[in-house]
């Protein structure tokens, strides 16, 4: 240690003097417990938030049928089927079954029986 460093050390010792208050283990223990509690609450809140967001996103994806069905959001009241099946008369000897959208009545699919006179 150089002479300057030695003098600095003396000056620092004089300057630092005596702390006006004591820090005791009890204060540290209490603050540590509070910190742990805050951290636990924060992580619980984060989990709840992520869970809630996940539930909302999945409810929107499945409940409103976004991209999951050809009809999309049909605007029908809950409990009413989106499609219905209609059995048609035999055309040219083939029985045909038509699938229609309940809301619009539009034909979404036609199933023709390969056997003459129906299946």
């Amino acid at each position, binding site marked *: 240690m150089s002479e300057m460093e030695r003098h600095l050390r003396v*000056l620092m010792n004089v300057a630092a003097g005596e702390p006006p208050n004591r820090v005791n283990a009890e204060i540290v223990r209490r603050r540590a417990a509070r910190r742990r509690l805050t951290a636990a609450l924060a992580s619980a809140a984060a989990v709840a938030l992520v869970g809630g967001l996940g539930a909302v996103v999945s409810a929107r994806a499945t409940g409103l049928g976004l991209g999951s069905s050809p009809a999309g959001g049909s605007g029908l009241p809950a409990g009413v089927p989106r499609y219905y099946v209609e059995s048609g008369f035999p055309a040219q000897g083939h029985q045909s079954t038509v699938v229609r959208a309940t809301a619009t009545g539009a034909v979404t699919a036609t199933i023709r029986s390969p056997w003459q006179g129906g299946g």
Partner: protein
Amino acid sequence: MHFVEVRERALQRRAWLLTGDWALAEDLVQTALVRSWPRWERIRRRDDPEIYVRRVMVNTWATWSRRRWRAERACEVVPDTAAPGDVAAEVSVRMAVRSALESLTDRQRAVLVLRVFDDLSEAQVAQVLDCAVGTVKSTMSQALARLRDDPRLGELMELGYRRAKSR
């Protein structure tokens, strides 16, 4: 925690040299100890607790000095209280040292306090600050160069040199 009872005074004095304020120093020591508390058993087994707490203190202070709004300083007691001894001389030294330390960067101050006040070796300072020994050496020489230019500190050191010579 026996460590707190034995070392709190030294920790607070070191914290004062880092912060220049007793209320902040107390808060810094408490925060460093609180952060070390959950890992205490592991620190005791694997590391020197003193080195670990010093490292937490220096890092915490570096973070605080970047973030904290420091225009107002909170304190529990009014600092204007009567004290025994040569108060004028003590206050003058304290003010000179504090203003000299304030002129340094956080890193330079930390190196100076650990190297000079705590009397740690360059390798130990490097361990606390998690840097190379060469970095400690260069930071220390920059800090000393800056302190050499401080007129008030220079005056006090000159007084010290003269006293040492006359002995």
